[in-house]
């Protein structure tokens, strides 16, 4: 794509999210969301084939619906409270509708159907932006309205998302769909934390963004989108094999890697509030997540997956892909756990 257009579009995406995060007028929030959505459509459509068209269309439809629901919530709030400020507590009905709108934007269950299909239909780099940057804006809104969110609703959404994320990912071999279901599950964890301690939800979001970025950048390095091609990594970039192992296990929430930190914090917050059954369920479902990550590591790093003989001697030209920021990302995504006492600063 024309680099100038690309820059403008990217900036619009960023601007839209920033507007959402920093505005104090509900209308500006809605404008930000619309800007964001419209600007990201061309990014999703980097390749012109029917598959990506379909993915874009689905994304557009669901996000537009969500924005409409957001507008509905804002209007209800306006009618009931007579003001547009985001600092004031929301009216309960408006809060319900807005939560549902944000859930649609995030891809929480039962609004999760678009996430795997959209993720599968687009390029890896677009998927990266979809799964990481696009989560910032809705999460910030949820963070802002978190005092007035109906607990029943959000916990239901959270439980369903964790379950769907776990079970859905079991049946996949396409890496983009796996990352999509992983995002659904992580969103579930975040919304569960939102109820009791929004700070931990933000922590989870941060760590999740780091992890997903690392993983998707590693996939982009090898241009792999299936488990099968991922299993040839040992031949192409052997160093990356170890990195993939560590990152995927960290995504699964295995101590002593970074991915364990948000899970630990969330469980602690939940149990501090005498909530035992929910974290138990969530942890057990997270085991399913860990299982399909481990399946990936099994085929990639831990064993030499069966392949034809000419796959075992890949020759390649000098790589020209720039691996943006990969080493620090890998470090961040695996070794952050000892920094957890710093969280005391958040109290």
């Amino acid at each position, binding site marked *: 794509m024309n680099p100038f257009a690309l820059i403008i579009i990217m900036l619009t995406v960023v601007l839209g999210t920033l507007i959402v995060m920093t505005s104090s007028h509900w209308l500006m929030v809605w404008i930000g969301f619309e800007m964001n959505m419209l600007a990201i459509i061309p990014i999703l459509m980097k390749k012109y084939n029917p598959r990506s068209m379909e993915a874009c*269309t*689905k994304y557009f*439809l*669901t996000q537009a*619906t969500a924005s409409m*629901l957001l507008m509905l919530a804002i209007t209800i709030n306006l009618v009931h409270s007579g003001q547009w400020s985001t600092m004031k507590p929301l009216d*309960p*009905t408006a809060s*319900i*509708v807005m939560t*549902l709108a944000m859930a*649609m934007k995030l891809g929480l269950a*039962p*609004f999760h*159907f*678009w996430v*795997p*299909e959209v993720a599968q239909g687009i390029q890896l780099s677009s998927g990266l932006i979809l799964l990481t940057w696009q989560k910032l804006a809705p999460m910030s809104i949820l963070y802002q309205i978190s005092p007035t969110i*109906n607990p*029943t*609703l959000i916990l239901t959404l959270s439980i369903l998302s964790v379950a*769907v994320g776990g*079970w*859905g*990912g*079991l*049946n*996949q071999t396409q890496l983009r769909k796996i990352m999509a*279901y992983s995002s659904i599950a992580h969103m579930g964890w975040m919304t569960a934390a939102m109820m009791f301690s929004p700070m931990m939800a933000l922590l989870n979001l941060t760590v999740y963004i780091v992890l997903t970025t690392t993983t998707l950048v590693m996939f982009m390095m090898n241009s792999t989108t299936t488990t099968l091609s991922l299993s040839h990594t040992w031949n192409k970039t052997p160093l990356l094999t170890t990195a993939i192992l560590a990152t995927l296990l960290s995504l699964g929430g295995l101590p002593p890697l970074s991915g364990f930190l948000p899970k630990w914090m969330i469980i602690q917050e939940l149990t501090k509030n005498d909530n035992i059954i929910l974290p138990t369920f969530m942890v057990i479902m997270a085991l*399913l997540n860990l299982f399909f990550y481990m399946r990936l590591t099994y085929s990639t790093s831990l064993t030499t997956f069966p392949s034809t003989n000419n796959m075992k001697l890949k020759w390649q030209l000098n790589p020209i892909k720039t691996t943006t920021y990969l080493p620090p990302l890998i470090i961040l995504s695996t070794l952050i756990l000892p920094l957890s006492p710093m969280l005391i600063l958040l109290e």
Partner: protein
Amino acid sequence: MNLFTSSMLLTLLILIVPVMASNFNIYTKNSYPNYVKTMVSYAFMTSLIPTIIFIQSGQDMVISNWHWMTIQTMKLTLSFKLDYFSMIFMPVALFVTWSIMEFSLWYMHSDPNINRFFKYLLMFLITMMILVTANNLFQLFIGWEGVGIMSFMLIGWWFGRADANTAALQAILYNRIGDVGLLMAMAWFLFNLNTWELQQIFLLNPTNTNLPLAGLLLAATGKSAQFGLHPWLPSAMEGPTPVSALLHSSTMVVAGIFLLIRFYPLTENNKTIQTTMLCLGAVTTLFTAICALTQNDIKKIVAFSTSSQLGLMMVTVGINQPHLAFLHICTHAFFKAMLFMCSGSIIHSLSDEQDIRKMGGLYKTLPFTTTALIAGSLALTGTPFLTGFYSKDLIIESINTSYTNAWALMLTLIATSLTAVYSTRIIYFALMGQPRFPTFILINENNPLLINPIKRLLVGSIFAGFLISNNITPMTIPQMTMPTHLKMTAIAVTLLGFIVALELNLATQNLKFKSPSNSTKFSTLLGYFPTTMHRLQPFLNLLASQKVASMVLDLTWLENILPKSISTFQMNTSMMISTQKGQIKLYFLSFLITLALTLLALKFV
């Protein structure tokens, strides 16, 4: 007094000497069986001395010889109780054994292991004596187990025959079940009364004796072939006829009843146990009498007859008349042993033919055996003033006049008439009519070894009842007055049985044999008891345990419950969730439904 104890111990010693002689190879002459028989006859005569002294003086005696051990506060000694029961039983048993040994000199004449046979018989006799004279339960248990073991060895005498081995095992198994009861009683006595001596048990007179008496009843059921543990007795006829005569008619099978009689001070205070004994005995006597009606093996008929008489003895103990039961034991020994010996004579003469359908017309060829058989059968049915009358008629009168269970009484009366029926059947088929056996057999009964014992027991069957009942010390008051119809009941039902059986046999003599009716099948298959209990029960048990072990435990609990169910559940759920149709209208539908439901649920409920 000294003569009492010394002659008593001499009797036991005389019995032990031949066993020792064969163990240490002291006796070197050829005629070991004859030697054993002579020793047993000497023992019989020696045992008459203490019996007569006892009858004259009326004094019991307990000989406590050797202190074996003391377990905390319980003292175990070798002690003999010489009282009414043991003193009168010993000469009777020794007399019958003497006769049987002389008979088996003729019967087992051609057996190469005849020495061992006599040794086994003698060992059986010794253990029976130990059982009868035991003063503590431990010694009684030794005798109990001893007679069980010897019964096993003797039933399986012809061990080449598979049926004999099965029958011997069956006897052991059923006896073992009864032994559990005896052990339970011994344990109870040990716990609650701290003793196994009979004197102390009767002195302490415990009140809550249900458990030990039930244990003793179970032991008697096993040993004396009461209903429930009875199939071993007809199967035990696989052994040689002397064995059947000695063990399974006179001595061993009465051990169970003897045990109950020994404990009469306890049973006379426990109404529950008495009722149980009464009903059990009534059922036994009628059931085995029914089974005896359609048997074709002469020994089996006599075996069922024994079983029926044992039931009668149990009934007598059940109406709290232990001394009458004991009298019946003693008189029954005479004629039952003689009946078995007559059967043995018939079987041997017809060269080992035991089926009554293949006998007939023997009263001309075996006159003496015929006489003995008929006299024995008459004594068995309680013909007035023969042996059986003195005990059996008294029993029937006691039942009629006691305040007891009328149903048990009726069963006993029916069984009494059936006794006459199957006795008539034996006589009719074996002795009367035309011969149905092959004609080239030489039949004679000239051998004195055969004639003399039967003669002795014949005299005993006729006179022993009179002699014994007139000489023993009266322990209970017999019922003197009763209405005429009650006094006539025994005679009447017996006569009825005789007449009906004879009429039926004569009337149906030339009729064609139709396929058996259901009642015939019931009787021939022994009430279906062996079929169900020997085959069905173990099969069901093993099937159930196989199902539990392999199906339930292995397959379900260990495999299916957690591992397989979890894995199938996860697989199904993941397939369900990750297969999406991809139609956006469905997704919007889900959005709509969720929205509507949420708003409804959270706002208006």
